């Protein structure tokens, strides 16, 4: 039971981070390979505030998320003005720089040996409620006017601009929103593990999240969430298989990308209306899926 609760808590924390990646990559088409750095900022800032300055837990989380948003603004200001492929390069560099910085600031962060002694405050219930709230918030964002504008500019930036959409502003808002979600997951992570070290926040983690989003379906929030759920739980559940679990993980990802390039769910969203439609007229849904794949 303790093991299951442990796995689930970590999965929920990852879900929050991946939902942040979905907001960025799924809605606006920007790739961040330094997203994990924002998780690190959330984890370290909240942890340090509580341990070294005695700030209350909730306040520490708020300060950490706001601090991450501030840093997100600084890095986002040039980033959202770049072409998409450069965005991943800049964020990659930023992410590695943050990891290096955490390694070097030994007196404050403990350096490579990690930062310990963070009180354990995150519970399974808290992680679960946070994950559900974050997913609901993003679902609402996706169907809002801003979400539509994000998807529009992902489809065609020039046309979106010609329509009068303020592309830079929308991208910036979305970037900071995504940073806030990821930083929040970092806070929960620090107060669950009670120990953080810089090696866990490198580009590999950011890339993992991008894989999860694509695995489930980059155009579908429910797909991304399901993808994140499966892929983050899998290595934990298969712990008994030692390193073979990573082979299984890789094979699974390759199979999906090969046979269903739009991800598990494609553009389909798990809403009550769509589920009903699936059972009433299965055929038409399938057909529209095929055509989406081509477009």
């Amino acid at each position: 039971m303790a093991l299951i609760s442990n796995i689930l808590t970590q999965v929920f924390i990852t879900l929050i981070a991946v939902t942040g990646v979905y907001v960025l990559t799924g809605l606006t088409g920007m790739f961040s390979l330094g997203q994990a750095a924002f998780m690190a900022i959330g984890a370290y800032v909240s942890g340090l505030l509580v341990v070294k300055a005695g700030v209350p837990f909730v306040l520490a989380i708020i300060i950490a998320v706001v601090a991450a948003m501030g840093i997100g603004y600084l890095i986002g200001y040039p980033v959202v003005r770049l072409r998409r492929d450069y965005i991943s390069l800049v964020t990659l560099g930023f992410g590695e720089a943050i990891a290096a910085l955490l390694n070097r600031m030994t007196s404050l962060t403990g350096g490579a040996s990690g930062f310990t002694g963070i009180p354990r405050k995150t519970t399974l219930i808290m992680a679960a409620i946070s994950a559900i709230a974050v997913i609901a918030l993003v679902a609402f964002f996706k169907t809002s006017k801003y979400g539509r504008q994000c998807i529009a500019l992902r489809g065609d930036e020039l046309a979106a601009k010609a329509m009068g959409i303020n592309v830079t502003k929308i991208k910036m808002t979305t970037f900071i929103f995504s940073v806030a979600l990821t930083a929040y997951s970092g806070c929960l992570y620090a107060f669950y593990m009670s120990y953080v070290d810089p090696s866990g926040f490198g580009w590999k983690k950011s890339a993992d999240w991008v894989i999860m989003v694509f695995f489930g379906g980059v155009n579908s929030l429910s797909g991304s969430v399901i993808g994140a759920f499966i892929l983050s739980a899998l290595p934990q559940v298969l712990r008994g298989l030692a390193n073979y679990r990573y082979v299984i993980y890789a094979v699974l990802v390759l199979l999906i990308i090969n046979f269903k390039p739009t991800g598990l769910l494609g553009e389909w969203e798990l809403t009550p209306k769509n589920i009903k439609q699936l059972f009433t007229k299965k055929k038409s849904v399938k057909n529209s899926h095929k055509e989406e794949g081509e477009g």
Partner: protein
Amino acid sequence: MGVMLKVNDLSVNYGHVKALKHANIEVESGKIVSIIGANGAGKSTMLRAISGLVKPATGNVEFMGSALPAKPSKIVAKGVVHVPEGRKTFSGLTIRDNLLVGGYLYKGKQLEENLEKQYKLFPILEERKNQFAGTLSGGEQQMLAVSRGLMSNPKIILLDEPSMGLAPIIVNQIYDLIRQIRDSGITVLLVEQNARKALGICDYAYVLENGIISLQGTGDELLRSDSVRKAYLGG
């Protein structure tokens, strides 16, 4: 009817390439004005400069007596909307959502009214409103792009090559539509390579050649002009 849109001494450079050189045009309100010219003559650049997608090197654009703002988002709010070439619909959104993006300046009842108006003008879009835009045919996507532009309730609509890559019968439908748009009181600035079509429909036209306005006149005048016939209508 007065002059609605006035382009004064407009030049645009892309690096060293001078795409548009000191061009002047006037668009009277309630009319269809065409700009024709060969590939690379600067037609699309003219529209992009008007809608704020590129910054002009010299000159300015006057709209209803005052200078247009520089940002595309503010230009649309003034009532100038640009439908770029190549049927750029938002493939990740449904048709209804595409239209809603176009009408982002409005909300609630006004937005619904605009939507109803577009569905009346383009019944095919209502039929398929919940399909993704990528599933439409070329002609339907062009109609969606135009309709999406109209969702912002423009005073003038800038159409860039609406006939590009479409079958002749579909081109005729699109042109009927352009007439309908004008008749509903919206001014049209039309850019086309299809010179015969564009001159046939317009009230006034300009010929762009290597970034310079080389000729202007009513559609009939230009259709009869020798140089236009040689260069654009095949003799």
